[in-house]
């Protein structure tokens, strides 16, 4: 056994010498190597390459991040390693070596022993990874019983201790529960525990926290960060979020259109990026200190190429600001080393010609003029669904031209509020005043076309926001006709074109069906539809959360641009504080149906914080190496809204909880500056003495 292992390690060494590029750390063989890996999917019109010429060295105990936007091939790599490509997918070139053995040649029993044993995978949706008809205990016990032929009692003891190690409180009760009885965050901890139970040497994580709330995500990320230290497991962490990769990984590969474009240590790549795409990604992400006026986002122009029709030469060429015709599009670009000691390499021909330290061209900044009169006034608004108190005493207002962000995690009541505002449901008490008209109990069917027109909504899911059965143009035209903006058919057609111009889409999109559009384009149509009738207030319900980073920036800028021009009030519902920081003028932080804190954006992002705001801020993954942040981890999960805690609703998770006060009495609202209000029992001095969450790190 020992002998065989040594032999295979030697073979791995040979392979690396043959490949001859990656750095070799003395006496340490990589646990996983991908050598010139290429994967294709069989399509109707021939093979479509999904991954091209991919190389990876993963050392024992190392965490490697794989980042890129949707469709860049990052999940395909994980599936290829697991040999789960399915019928259509095929490795067309290269090798995958796991501990020196070629995974691609393995079949049957050999492969089964590796899958789930030596290599374990964790997916995005925890509920889909758990068997809903078995108790969690039974599912956990199976793992050591199957892989190590362990007895039931020993296996149960192992499972229980593993639950403690993934920091699950109350392991006994959890073992007896069924998956649907525990929360999403707990489910993902169980999935991680299950993967770790077989003592894997390699863990593949495919967007493991995407389905979770930010404060829950922060806990899981903290757990993942410690896995390699505690268990010695190597990790391949797949994510679209650069911030999460910074928090969990040692090394990173940036993927674009099936190719690795830049690879290196996280610190090396994030601080000294050497590929225009990586740089573009950073420029399109908001950072915690900047807002729309001081540092506008710069989006990457264009869209990723279709895998069927990649451009010649550099795939990023058509979107690149440094594109040199005749060179960049001449031949496929290979990886060139930048810092051999660090293993930093980039797939860019002009890597030595670009002034990387010069700041990227700034976007066009502007200043926000003062806001106009109050257009929307919400006063003491409450809504209960049977036992669930979804909105409880909401009070805030929004001025003309202002962007007010409503921030909170699932169950905080932000969607209920949006539905009340839009007239889909009615409030129980309180009032909403829109330019003198009381809306809280006025269903949409009884609102006049004028009222409906002045209050429009942009929806969350771009893949759902347009009716797949009708053309884009007919859907915009329907809004114009229904809201009575225009009546004459030729005028309606003209306005459809005007709106397409407004959201910067070609006019021939009017004839297209939604399935022919990308996510960002669909969301632009959603914006066009909302602005069809010159609305006074637009409610945007997480309009960016399903979009890729580079597309997010473009849609954000579009939204700001239109809003400035039209003087629209924007109610921006989101859970992403970095976007909120960037976009909004004022912030309302909600938790379980109540407002915890509200104030101007700069006030909310600086101390004094509400303890929940502090935790939310600390949970935001920040990719930018110039910022360090304080660690604040919340215990437990968001309680069910059907049985909210007495007193302060945040009291069950609050690290500053005052026992005997916070869990009994509702908190008083303390006013700090004009319009900055915090609902908290903590003494004023203690709130004022809080330290900032973000700090600019000294480089």
């Amino acid at each position: 056994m020992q002998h065989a292992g040594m032999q295979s390690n030697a073979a791995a060494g040979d392979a690396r010498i043959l490949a001859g590029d990656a750095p070799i750390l003395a006496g340490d063989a990589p646990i996983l190597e991908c050598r010139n890996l290429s994967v294709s999917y069989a399509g109707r019109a021939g093979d479509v390459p999904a991954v091209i010429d991919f190389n990876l060295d993963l050392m024992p105990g190392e965490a490697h991040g794989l980042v890129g936007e949707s469709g860049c091939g990052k999940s395909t790599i994980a599936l290829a390693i697991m040999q789960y490509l399915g019928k259509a997918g095929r490795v067309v070139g290269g090798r995958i070596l796991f501990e020196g053995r070629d995974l691609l040649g393995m079949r049957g029993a050999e492969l089964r022993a590796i899958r789930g044993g030596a290599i374990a995978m964790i997916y995005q949706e925890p509920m889909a990874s758990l068997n809903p008809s078995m108790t969690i205990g039974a599912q956990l016990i199976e793992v050591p019983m199957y892989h190590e032929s362990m007895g039931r009692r020993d296996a149960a003891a192992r499972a229980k201790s593993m639950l403690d190690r993934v920091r699950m409180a109350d392991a006994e009760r959890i073992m007896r529960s069924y998956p649907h009885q525990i929360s999403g965050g707990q489910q993902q901890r169980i999935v991680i525990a299950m993967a770790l139970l077989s003592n894997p040497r390699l863990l593949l994580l495919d967007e493991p926290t995407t389905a979770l709330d930010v404060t829950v995500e922060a806990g899981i990320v903290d757990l993942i960060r410690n896995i390699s230290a505690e268990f010695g497991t190597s990790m391949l962490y797949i994510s679209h979020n650069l911030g999460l990769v910074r928090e969990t990984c040692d090394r990173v590969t940036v993927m674009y259109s099936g190719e690795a474009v830049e690879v290196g240590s996280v610190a090396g790549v994030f601080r000294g990026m050497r590929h225009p795409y990586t740089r573009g990604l950073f420029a399109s992400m908001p950072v915690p200190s900047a807002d729309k006026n001081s540092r506008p986002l710069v989006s990457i122009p264009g869209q990723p190429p279709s895998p069927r029709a990649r451009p010649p030469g550099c795939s990023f060429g058509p979107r690149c600001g440094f594109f040199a015709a005749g060179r960049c599009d001449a031949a496929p670009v290979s990886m060139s080393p930048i810092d051999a000691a660090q293993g930093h390499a980039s797939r860019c021909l002009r890597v030595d010609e670009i002034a990387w330290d010069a700041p990227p061209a700034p976007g066009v900044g502007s200043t926000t003029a003062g806001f106009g009169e109050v257009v929307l006034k919400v006063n003491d608004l409450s809504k209960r669904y049977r036992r669930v108190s979804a909105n409880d005493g909401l009070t805030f207002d929004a001025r003309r031209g202002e962007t007010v962000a409503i921030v909170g995690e699932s169950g905080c009541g932000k969607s209920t509020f949006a539905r009340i505002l839009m007239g889909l449901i009615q409030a129980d008490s309180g009032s909403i005043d829109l330019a003198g008209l009381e809306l809280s109990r006025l269903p949409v069917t009884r609102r006049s076309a004028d009222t409906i027109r002045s209050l429009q909504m942009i929806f969350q899911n771009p893949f759902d926001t347009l009716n797949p059965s009708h053309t884009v143009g007919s859907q915009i035209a329907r809004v114009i006709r229904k809201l009575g903006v225009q009546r004459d058919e030729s005028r309606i057609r003209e306005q459809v074109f005007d709106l397409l111009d407004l959201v910067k889409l070609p006019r021939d999109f009017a004839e297209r069906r939604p399935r022919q559009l990308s996510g960002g384009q669909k969301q632009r149509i959603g914006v066009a539809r909302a602005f069809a009738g010159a609305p006074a207030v637009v409610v945007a319900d997480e309009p960016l959360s399903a979009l890729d980073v580079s597309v997010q920036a473009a849609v954000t800028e579009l939204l700001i641009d239109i809003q400035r021009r039209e003087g629209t009030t924007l109610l921006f519902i989101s859970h992403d504080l970095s976007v909120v920081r960037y976009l909004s003028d004022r912030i309302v932080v909600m938790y379980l149906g109540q407002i915890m804190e509200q104030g101007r954006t700069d006030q909310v992002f600086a101390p004094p914080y509400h303890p929940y705001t502090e935790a939310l801020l600390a949970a935001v993954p920040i990719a930018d190496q110039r910022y360090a942040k304080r660690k604040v981890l919340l215990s437990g999960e968001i309680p069910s809204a059907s049985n909210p805690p007495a007193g302060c609703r945040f009291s069950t998770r609050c690290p500053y909880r005052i026992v005997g006060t916070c869990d009994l009495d509702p908190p008083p609202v303390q006013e700090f500056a004009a319009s900055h209000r915090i609902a908290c029992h903590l003494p004023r001095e203690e709130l004022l003495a809080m330290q900032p969450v973000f700090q600019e790190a000294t480089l």
Partner: protein
Amino acid sequence: MNSRLAILLALIWLPLTAYVMFRSALGAHGSYLLLPAIPSVIVLYVLALRSWRESWVAMLGATLVCFWLLMAVTAPYLPLLDPNKPLVPLVTPGGIRHGVLFLLGSDLRGRDVLSRTVWGCQRVLVWGITATSVAYVVGAGAGLIGGYLGGWWDEFVSFASNVLLSFPVMVLYILVLNLLGQSGFNIIIAVTCSSAPVIMRIVRGLALDAKSRDYIQAAQTRGEHPLWIMLVELLPNVRGPIIVDACLRLGYTTVAITTLTFLGLGLQPPDPDWGLMIKEGATAALLWKYSYMVIVPALSVSSLILGFNLIADGMREMSLRD
């Protein structure tokens, strides 16, 4: 594309229905009605072959169904013997009597089996398609109402469908046809009673899923009428599974109608009908020599049902592929 298809189907189905249901009222010139349907069937077949060329299953199904459709619309123009006129009894297939060729033989009363088979597909097709369509209008309407409106509406349509579903299908047919009398129109009612609840369940489920989509909320927030939302926003998006189910259900309905006429319920003699032919031939078919009287109509009905089922299979396969 869709509107062209609708016109084509109307061009086939309306004349055929009028011809079969009101032949006596139309008199001798009735067969001119079928003239526009003949090219329509051919165009329909070509369209079907073109759009389903990726699935040989669906193409085979389309071939079978279009063959019978073509037989139905061209029956008056084909050189066939009179299907209702007794000539020579018990001629085995291929036999020639008095200079007349009986390609598929003649039945107990001396009528030509080939001619009765060709004419017989008219009734099966017309009543089958009509009954299924009516069941679909009722079932899909109820399903949309139950799924989208929810609440008391849902309770009501769900309860009604549960009551109807609690009857065994045959009992329901016999009950309806005995209560209302035996006629083609009452077969439509019987088929609707048995199929609509199932269709309602399918559509209701699809509507419940589609209802939570953002585009439905978008329609609600601009104050659209529920009827608009159901018909314009919801219905087109649930059509895929419905069309597949409709093809399968056409097969079931064909079986049901044939079974009913075999049992002597529903469509009445003397006009030829496959179920009727099987019934009339059943006694003679005890002798192997005369089994063609049952085998020919039975194979015909099987091939038509197979055609519908293959189309359904092929469409499902193609919808899964993209």
